[in-house]
């Protein structure tokens, strides 16, 4: 889960890391007022989850409140990578000596938390990671032990040469680590972390993503989610326990299990078709999920046919069959649906489906071949 810059700023403040004074604005008037309160030069920054907003014109500087008003007017309503800007942050401009990068994430290979820092902070950090990885110092932390002083020292000396600055940044690094683990983050970074002209170390911009699986134990952060920022259908899917990602093709897919869902898409492609989506109905069965899955897929006007591929394990075939019946009753399913169904509680499922004269395949290949026919017969109707 992602949050906005201003929300991330809130959180890092709670963890004792200083950042420039700022105000949130949703109108040019508010932006002006914010700039007034700050006094002096400010930055007007679009609050969107996507990267590259600076290059897209989503960050402007203003020397006076009126300039902030104008800048806000330009940015509000702008679309950045398809996301409309509705919130701005008005931030005190800082006199920057140098920009640094610090960031934490989980490293799946070592199964540890990795803390990365670099003296080459700023917008090009990703470029640095690719072209000069030696300029990024990585320290791997076992969360069972927490971060140790020797690790903080290593990171600090990778960032600064001066003893005083190392001491200051150790404080920030330690707080960032605490933030990462206490808030169950999947990513927490400050970029740039800047050394101001008066030798303070300040978080100019920070980004925090959370582990979706842990949101339940962080009510406070869970409330920060801005659903407008996500694809509406994908959000709706998530709310119903489905994983759904739209693709370009015309064959809708309803599958149980992410691996099988990907493999199903792969086979459709291998046989010459084009999958219209990835859709995993997830582990536990619940007939209502199938109804929602049909709804989501049928919103896409390109859909020519739907392939249901269920291999029952923890998902039970009879629940799927019940869901299918519900869907047919409550939605107008106007495209052919090809059903492949096998596994746990298969018999019970087949009883339900055959009662309604549905055709059911037990082998995937057969089902895929049918769904790929130029003209699929409307095989299943109530």
């Amino acid at each position, binding site marked *: 889960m992602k949050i906005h810059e201003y929300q991330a700023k809130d959180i890092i403040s709670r963890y004792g890391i200083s950042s420039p004074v700022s105000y949130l604005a949703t109108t040019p008037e508010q932006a002006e007022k914010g700039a007034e309160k700050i006094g002096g030069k400010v930055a007007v920054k679009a609050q969107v989850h996507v990267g590259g907003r600076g290059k897209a014109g989503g960050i402007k500087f203003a020397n006076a409140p009126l300039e902030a008003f104008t800048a806000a007017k330009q940015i509000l309503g702008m679309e950045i990578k398809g996301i409309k800007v509705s919130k701005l942050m008005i931030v005190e401009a800082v006199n920057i000596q140098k920009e640094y990068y610090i960031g934490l994430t989980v490293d799946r290979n070592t*199964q540890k938390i990795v803390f990365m820092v670099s003296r080459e902070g700023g917008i090009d950090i990703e470029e640095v990671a690719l072209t000069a990885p030696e300029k990024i110092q990585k320290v791997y932390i076992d*969360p*069972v032990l927490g971060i140790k002083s020797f690790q903080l020292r290593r990171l600090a000396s990778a960032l600064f040469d001066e003893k005083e600055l190392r001491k200051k940044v150790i404080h920030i690094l330690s707080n960032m680590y605490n933030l990462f683990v206490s808030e169950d983050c999947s990513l927490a970074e400050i970029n740039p972390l800047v050394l101001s002209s008066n030798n303070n170390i300040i978080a100019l911009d920070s980004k925090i993503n959370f582990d979706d*699986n842990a949101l339940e134990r962080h009510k406070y952060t869970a409330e920060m989610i801005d659903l407008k920022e996500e694809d509406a259908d994908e959000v709706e899917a998530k709310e119903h326990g489905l994983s759904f990602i739209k693709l370009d093709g015309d064959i809708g897919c309803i599958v149980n299990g992410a*691996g099988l869902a990907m493999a199903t898409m*792969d086979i459709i492609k291998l046989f010459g078709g084009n999958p219209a989506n*990835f859709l*995993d109905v997830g582990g536990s069965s619940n007939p209502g999920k199938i109804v929602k899955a049909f709804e989501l897929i049928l919103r896409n006007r390109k859909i020519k046919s739907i392939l249901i591929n269920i291999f029952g*394990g923890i998902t039970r075939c009879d629940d799927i069959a019940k869901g299918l019946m519900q869907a047919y009753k409550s939605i107008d399913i106007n495209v052919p649906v090809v059903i492949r169904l096998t596994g746990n509680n298969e018999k019970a499922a087949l009883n339900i489906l055959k009662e309604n004269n549905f055709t059911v395949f037990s082998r995937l290949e057969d089902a895929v071949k049918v769904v790929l026919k130029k003209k699929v017969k409307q095989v299943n109707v109530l």
Partner: protein
Amino acid sequence: MSILIDESTKLTVQGITGRDGFFHTMAMQEYGTNITAGITPGKGGRKVHGVPVFDSVKDAISEVEINTSIIYVPALFAADAIYESIDAGVKLIVCITEGIPVLDMLKICSYIKGSDIRLLGGNCPGLISPGKCKVGIMPAVIHKKGNIGIISRSGTLTYEVAQSITEAGLGQSTVIGIGGDSISGTGYIDLLEMFEKDEQTDAIAIIGEIGGTQEEQAAEYIKEKVSKPVFGFIAGKTAPRGKRMGHAGAIIDGGKGTAADKIKVWNNNGIKVLDRPDIFGQEIKKYLFYSQNV
């Protein structure tokens, strides 16, 4: 032989009174798995499908024999359930629960590293040694006792492979789902080592997917240490970059970990990579027939 589980497995079901725990207790029992205890805090004293329920694993272990545990408790309580089994001395723990927070898993993995405790999952379908024992949620009927070992990061995709092997007239020694999450208790390599040593296993099927570098590491191991033929499939050729494909943790990390990359590495390290999961049976059969007749 088979690996990890067999007739000597004595299983406890953690979360036995929940919907999934309840259902699969019955299914596993029907398959012949020896379930000696169920655990649900506060519900000790009941019976579920004839299995005595205890408040804690420790209570259970003081009355019945247990060497394996399967976990169906909700995600935020799963880590605690795993620690409870560890604390009580259980050596094989199979965690079906999906959606366990990553930091919980990191801590568990660090804690059991180097010990004799083996954790499968979370978010895994469990494992089955056909004809002997089933500790998981897979449909039993698609399996048959035989000589092919299966290791997979995916649940239902594994069933597809197992079924194709059975339909080809072959069978499985042990079928293991290691779980689709980015951090899981057991990876490919430990299991490859066990299958390599297992006398019942003649060939190995290994199923991977996009994301991470587990497949790449396995490839290296296979090249160096595995003498038995290995057949593979990688899911996610059509997955868009940078998108998370469901709970599988299938994230393409900075351009690395694509299906194409992984397939290439596998091919280069002697793994016979198939382009569909449902043809493992016929391909392995052909290979074994051919190699036995040369």
